[in-house]
């Protein structure tokens, strides 16, 4: 058995840390969550040689050990707690060669924890172009560590990093910054009180508690009471600490780092002039958004039709090749259409995540934030709300999590509350099928309708934000600091990996719910209480015994479905939804899609395949669906009413759960659920009644 070394990969955002992680682990990774919170936890294995392998933890990016967000807080908690299973034996701090100074701030803090820390200077391939020279030997001596030059882009330096890691025991474990010099009185008192503790660890614990959240003290120290200062004076000390650290870092870099200022100015500045232009900047951004939505619709239709067709064929094949019986029915009518309802998403979600990853990795997203901040502030949002609102077009769950970057709670809360209005990928299959049903396939009516639905989503988000902004009282002042990273050509491998990772997570998570619901639905649809269900065959046969022209089998099936459990549920809510143009079958689909919107199509697929034994695709079945008076069910009015209902209603249990987690109360998700559903009802009602 090879010996395991636990390695923490640390670094600020935009240092290329994730690219480094992808190379180290050769994409052999596991992604999970930290218990109880939704911070992504990534770990992977790096084979060093026959005797040693490294378990690498890719920690969330952070600028320093002074926590500002849940993500940063997790890093601190893990690093402080020696008993944590993830507590590292050695840390690799990834730095950006063009902004070494700031990475060193974080590095000196890690050093203070007395964890052996290796400095990995990434993007070394840019040194020549930028005229940067580093005296590595000297830097190693000054920082009391090993320094490795890396380039994730060119895949260089990794062998050397491996050698350094294998010899990590030789890395001196000594801090290079003495925290006690920022206030000798305060710290010598602390030392007297806790002679056995590391002063810097105590200091982190104290400031973390004052600024952020209560840590479980017991995990870090056995003593549960120690003296603290007021939050304001702690903050002053932290600022003093940061300034002092920079004094030290500047001294170090003066001796070891030179940059030719003539070469430093760059192509990025020109790009900024265009992309941040007060007119072109916005035109380009909206152009990009249009391109993304166009591509989602255009490129996904062929694979989606293919998936739809294949699953239908599969059901058919199962019917004809497996012995008939309940199990076969469950598979062919419940499971396969249910799974098909998930898989059909893959093309759209993958395309969306592909573009989002490109925007993020290239550095363009920060420019969008910069452009949009002023405008969004009028709605009580922040420029940083752009990321949640745009990623909301993929899925509200990562979008709500992405609000963590917003410093101000008021802006963050408003963003969380309005993000579910943006058109998420789960709405797309619902829209896709309804658009195909009720919007004529002429010119670009269909893609314009989809575009319109996206605009309705964004519009609803902005309008609601504005209403909340005007009605909330409280702290309107806010901080806003955002890094504008240099432009980089995204690494295709990293982008594709992100796409794969996100799509897979989505399918697994959504798939579980959809699968469970399709099975429940199938059982409810194939069983029923009372005589009406059991004696369906007899009753219908008797009723139509004299009439030879009708399709007896279809009538029996329809009668059975109407009297099944699900039929009874559907019909009991029909009076409430009939004014919106929906019948009881749509009612069932609506009810079941309160768990997750994408269930809509799967539910209809399940209900309609129970309805008839003919193997047709769901679209044809829906076209043939009639009301009691013989008119088609899916008219333009019904279709629009249904689409708008999906545009406004919060039909997603996972969103409710994530909002509860992020706001730490049930109050907001419940308000959100009821008000969005109410809004959806009123709007669908008005649209249907006006168009009738």
């Amino acid at each position, binding site marked *: 058995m090879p010996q395991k070394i636990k390695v923490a990969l640390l670094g600020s955002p935009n240092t290329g840390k994730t690219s480094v992680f992808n190379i180290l682990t050769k994409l052999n990774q596991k992604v999970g969550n930290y218990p109880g919170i939704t911070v992504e936890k990534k770990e992977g294995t790096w084979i060093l040689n026959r005797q040693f392998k490294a378990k690498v933890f890719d920690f969330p990016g952070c*600028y*320093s050990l*002074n926590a*500002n967000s849940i993500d940063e807080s997790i890093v601190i908690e893990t690093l402080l707690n020696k008993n944590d299973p993830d507590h590292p034996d050695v840390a690799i701090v990834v730095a950006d060669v*063009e*902004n*070494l*100074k*700031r990475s060193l*701030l974080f590095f000196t803090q890690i050093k203070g924890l007395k964890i052996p820390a290796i400095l990995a200077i990434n993007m070394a391939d840019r040194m020549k172009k930028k005229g940067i020279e580093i005296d590595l030997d000297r830097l190693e001596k000054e920082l009391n560590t090993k320094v490795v030059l890396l380039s994730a882009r060119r895949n260089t330096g990794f062998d050397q990093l491996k050698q350094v890691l294998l010899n990590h025991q030789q890395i001196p474990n000594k801090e290079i910054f003495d925290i006690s010099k920022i206030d000798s009185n305060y710290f010598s008192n602390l030392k007297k009180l806790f002679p056995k503790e590391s002063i810097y660890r105590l200091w982190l614990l104290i400031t973390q508690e004052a600024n952020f959240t209560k840590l479980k003290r017991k995990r870090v120290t056995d003593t549960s009471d120690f003296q603290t200062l007021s939050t*304001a004076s702690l*903050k*002053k000390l*932290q*600022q003093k600490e*940061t*300034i002092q650290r*920079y004094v030290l870092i500047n001294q170090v870099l003066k001796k070891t780092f030179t940059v030719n200022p003539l070469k430093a100015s760059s192509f990025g*500045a020109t790009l*900024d*002039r265009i992309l*941040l232009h*007060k007119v072109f900047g916005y035109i380009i951004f909206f152009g990009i958004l249009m391109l993304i939505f166009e591509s989602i619709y255009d490129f996904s239709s062929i694979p989606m039709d293919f998936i739809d067709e294949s699953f239908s064929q599969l059901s058919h094949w199962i019917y004809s090749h497996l012995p008939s019986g309940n199990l076969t029915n469950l598979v062919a009518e419940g499971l396969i259409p249910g799974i098909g309802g998930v898989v059909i998403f893959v093309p759209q979600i993958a395309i969306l995540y592909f573009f989002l990853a490109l925007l993020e990795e290239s550095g363009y997203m*920060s420019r969008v*934030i*910069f*452009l949009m*901040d*002023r405008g969004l502030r009028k709605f009580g949002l922040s*420029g940083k709300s752009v990321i949640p609102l745009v990623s909301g077009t993929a899925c509200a769950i990562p979008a709500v999590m992405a609000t963590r970057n917003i*410093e101000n709670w008021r802006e963050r809360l408003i963003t969380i509350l309005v993000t579910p209005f943006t058109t998420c990928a789960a709405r797309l299959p619902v829209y896709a099928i309804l658009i195909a049903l009720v919007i004529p396939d002429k010119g670009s009516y269909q893609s314009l309708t989809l575009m319109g639905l996206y605009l309705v989503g964004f519009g609803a988000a902005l309008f609601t934000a504005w209403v909340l902004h005007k009605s909330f009282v409280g702290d309107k*002042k*806010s*901080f*806003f*600091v*955002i*890094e*504008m*990273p*240099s432009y980089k050509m995204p690494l295709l491998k990293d982008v594709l990996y992100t796409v794969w990772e996100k799509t897979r997570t989505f399918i697994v998570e959504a798939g579980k719910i959809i699968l469970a619901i399709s099975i429940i639905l199938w059982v409810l649809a194939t069983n029923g209480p009372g005589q009406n269900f059991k004696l369906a065959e007899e009753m219908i046969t008797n009723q139509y015994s004299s009439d030879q022209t009708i399709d007896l089998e279809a009538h029996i099936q329809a009668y059975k479905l109407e009297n099944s459990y699900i039929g009874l549920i559907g019909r009991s809510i029909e009076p409430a939804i009939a004014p919106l143009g929906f019948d009881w079958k749509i009612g069932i689909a609506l009810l079941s899609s309160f768990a997750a919107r994408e269930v809509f199509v799967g539910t209809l697929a399940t209900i309609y395949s129970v309805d008839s034994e003919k193997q047709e695709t769901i679209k044809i079945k829906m076209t043939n669906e009639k009301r009691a008076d013989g008119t088609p069910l899916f008219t333009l009015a019904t279709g629009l009413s249904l689409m708008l209902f999906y545009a406004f209603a919060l039909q997603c249990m996972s969103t409710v759960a994530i909002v509860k987690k992020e706001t730490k109360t049930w109050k907001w998700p419940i308000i959100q659920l009821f008000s969005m559903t109410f809004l959806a009802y009123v709007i669908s009602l008005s649209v249907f009644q006006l168009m009738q």
Partner: protein
Amino acid sequence: MISLDLLKKKQSAVIDQFKIEKLPLKLIEMGCLPGNEITLLQRAPFKDPIYLKVDQSYLAIRRETAKNIFVRLKS
């Protein structure tokens, strides 16, 4: 000495002092400290937020934050 938000586009200055209690720690961590050179690269439409180069960092802050930072123009 003027407050940072009054810098003209492309103008450089040196940070002289700031109202420490009104600034987030993150700004200081990003290199916004007295003595460092600061250049205003660009302003968003309606002059807010502003895009800065401080030391080696490129960052954007809002005008209300910039009002708490005072700079000395380079002669």
